[in-house]
């Protein structure tokens, strides 16, 4: 039996790696992948608590997280394609039209 804290630590490490990737990478697609890592890290926590308390609500929540991730990826990648048509790069620092 793996204790609950182990799962929480794994979740925290993965979430931090995701945040680090979002902060230091400039490739838009890799930034999306790092967001996926963060969503997955949250799923671990939800299911670990779910198992700990013998409920099923956490699994429903992680199911919803997967739905939102699928929606986010489809719209986000469509935005990346639209941006790429506008200017042939995916470097996020070059899209600063809305920056004052």
């Amino acid at each position, binding site marked *: 039996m*793996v204790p*609950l*804290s*182990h*799962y*929480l*630590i*794994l979740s*925290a490490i*993965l*979430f*931090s*790696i995701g945040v*680090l*990737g979002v*902060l*230091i990478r*400039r*490739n838009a*697609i*890799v930034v*999306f*992948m790092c967001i*996926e*890592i963060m969503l*997955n890290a949250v*799923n*671990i926590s939800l*299911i670990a608590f779910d*198992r*700990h*308390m*013998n409920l*099923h*609500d956490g*699994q*429903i929540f992680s*199911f*919803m997280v*997967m*739905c*939102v*991730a*699928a*929606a*986010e*990826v*489809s*719209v986000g*990648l*469509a935005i*990346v*394609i*639209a941006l*790429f048509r*506008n200017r042939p*790069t*995916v*470097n996020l*620092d070059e899209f600063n039209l809305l920056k004052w």
Partner: protein
Amino acid sequence: MELLIFYPLGALTVLLALGVVFNNSPIGSAVSLIGMMLGLAGVFILLSAHFIAVLQVIIYAGAIMVLFMFVIMLLNLKGDDRAWKTRERNLFLSVMTGVLLLGILYEFIEITNATTFREPATLAEDFGTTARVGTTLFTDYVLPFEVASILLLAAMVGAVVLAKTKVD
């Protein structure tokens, strides 16, 4: 015994997640991410959430990563994906923010460890099976389920509209 499975799986997922961040090419990142998703499916099986593990493989490692691969291949980045691009000016700040976040999360875990959880509840016979999760989904959570379908429809329409028209 479960620890013997958990530690290699956890180490694998963490290493592959680092591989996503520190890989040169987007394709390498995507392959690492697929490996990480499969490792997480193993973690979910270890948590006896079989239904979610199967969904993880089908939705994440299947559908979402295929979409990523498809877009990476479609964009055909010449030279843009060779260099390991980081934020130019604020690299130190970014790394410091990451370290700080890790510290905050670690402290959070310490606090959760210090609090005494109740003993883990005895696991029901049908924990995590499709029948049990489906029953919960279609009784207590039927409204969020329907709202999720509207969300997916909106995302589908949005993706078609965004990818079709040109940004002026």
